[in-house]
């Protein structure tokens, strides 16, 4: 079944684009011919019932699947403006990950200090100058709205932060390296409503600098934070369009059923 894709009238510049992307976990085909644009400095939400392949799709963008044997891509994800195919065997996954950051469902700070956590990406990139590191860490923590809470205890272990703070720390960590895209995989599902609110706000703020893909199982969240929404079902992209359109007048019956909660 072909996806129903409704492009906006004045499309913003493209940041990336999946082109008939298939994905296999061993023999199991988890993504079936997904083609979808990602617009620059916009938030694109991925919604769909559990197991439909949202996380799988998201993790293609930073080649996370490369870590596991037997996981296989087929198709392309073009990154613009330099037109590289992220999935190309020739392309170094580490390079891809340096350009595209990710925030996970469960906050996963490293067992290090707050400072070290945020500085990690920079250190990996060869930055050694302490002043530069300190500056960038501060900027990133401010960007993740965490600076005020932690500025006096940058050397504390990150695991001692609360869940919401940890997640913002992970966002700071992702922000610190000036990525081109940030992938969020249900970033608030482990958090309480207040922490969720602050993360959503954050997403709204940072999208001015970076393109965002966000997986969520919470319709309201998708409606609140995203500019575009993609509805996936059983490994296929069912419908893609501007968020308002998807929620107000979905083109497909399945999308409507899902959004109104009649199914899933």
């Amino acid at each position, binding site marked *: 079944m072909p996806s129903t894709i409704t492009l906006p009238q004045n499309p913003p510049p493209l940041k990336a684009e999946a082109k008939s992307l298939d994905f296999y976990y061993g023999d199991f085909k988890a993504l079936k011919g997904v083609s979808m644009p990602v617009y620059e400095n916009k938030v694109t939400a991925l919604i769909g019932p559990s197991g439909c392949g949202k996380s799988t799709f998201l993790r293609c963008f930073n080649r996370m699947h490369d870590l596991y044997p037997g996981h296989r891509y087929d198709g392309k994800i073009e990154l613009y403006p*330099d037109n590289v195919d992220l999935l190309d065997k020739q392309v170094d996954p580490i*390079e891809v990950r340096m350009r595209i950051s990710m925030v996970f469902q469960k906050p996963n700070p490293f067992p290090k200090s707050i400072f070290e956590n945020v500085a990690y990406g920079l250190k*990996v*990139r*060869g930055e050694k100058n302490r002043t530069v590191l300190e500056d960038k860490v501060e900027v990133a923590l401010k960007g993740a709205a965490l600076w005020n809470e932690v500025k006096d205890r940058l050397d504390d272990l990150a695991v001692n932060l609360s869940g919401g703070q940890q997640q913002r720390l992970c966002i700071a960590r992702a922000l610190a390296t000036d990525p081109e895209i940030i992938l969020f995989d249900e970033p608030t599902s482990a958090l309480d409503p207040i922490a969720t609110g602050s993360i959503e706000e954050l997403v709204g703020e940072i999208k001015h600098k970076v393109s965002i893909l966000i997986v969520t199982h919470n319709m309201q969240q998708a409606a609140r934070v995203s500019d575009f929404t993609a509805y996936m079902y059983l490994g296929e992209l069912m419908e893609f369009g501007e968020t308002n359109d998807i929620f107000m007048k979905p083109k497909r019956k399945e999308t409507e059923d899902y959004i109104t909660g009649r199914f899933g």
Partner: protein
Amino acid sequence: MNAEKTSALRAIIRKARRYDLLVSALGLLFLSIGILTLAALFVDMALTGIPRLTPEFFTNFPSRRPGEAGILSSWVGSLLVMFVTACVAVPIGIAGAIYLEEYARKNWFTAVIEINITNLAGVPSIIYGLLALGLFVYTFKLGQSILTAGLTLALLILPIVITATREALRSIPQHIREAAYACGASQWQVVNDHLVKYSMPGILTGVIIGMSRAIGETAPIITIGALTFIAFLPPAPGQINIETGAAAGLFDWLWSPFTVMPIQIFNWTSRPDPRFHENAAAASFVLVLMTLSMNALAIWLRYRLRKNIKW
């Protein structure tokens, strides 16, 4: 991203990758050092010892004539000691582990047992030898017998059996226990009908590893004083002594003097005649083959048998 930045990035990645290569290389190197050592040891023994591995080698008693010397008394001794060890360590170890894993409530006593077992696992085997000497030999007057040796080694491998059993029990998912309880089973029924059965592969692995450790232990056996020339077998139950006509009791063998493989090896290597060293190599080869195949069996069990129990 512009080309200049990209190439800078690539340079950094290349540099970082070097360490990946280094660790892989070192890891493989170190692994092969370990494995090659094992191979060297094995080949060395095999080359010296294999010519001596005739059937008579297994059916002859030790002798002052190297060509006639065999390992009959020592392999029988090892086997019997292992038998006692297993009979003591396996039930006690499994029962203890079940208690700790399934019954123990959190209190100071179980905490003491826990810490204690961890500590015992690190206690040098020679200390067990001292325990056996002071307690079994001199206090309980069990003598330098198969029973003493078996008990000593049983205590030595108890922590191994307990730890393996606990791990096996822990790997049984909670929902299996819940399913059994939900059927109205009592705790002992859950343990006996399910947990023990499903953790058997893990327990067996632990037992075999423990036994393979015990069979090669030398120091505690020397400490209890088994450095002896033995050219006879412990009395089989009911065996008739041709001189006296008396039949041996069912458990007489437990009190019999004995020797074991490592002691026999030790004895032969300390002989001046180099031909005894060939015997020692041959016996070592047999012993290593025994322990290695026990270990291999345990590993095989761990990887195969476990697959038969799915949750």
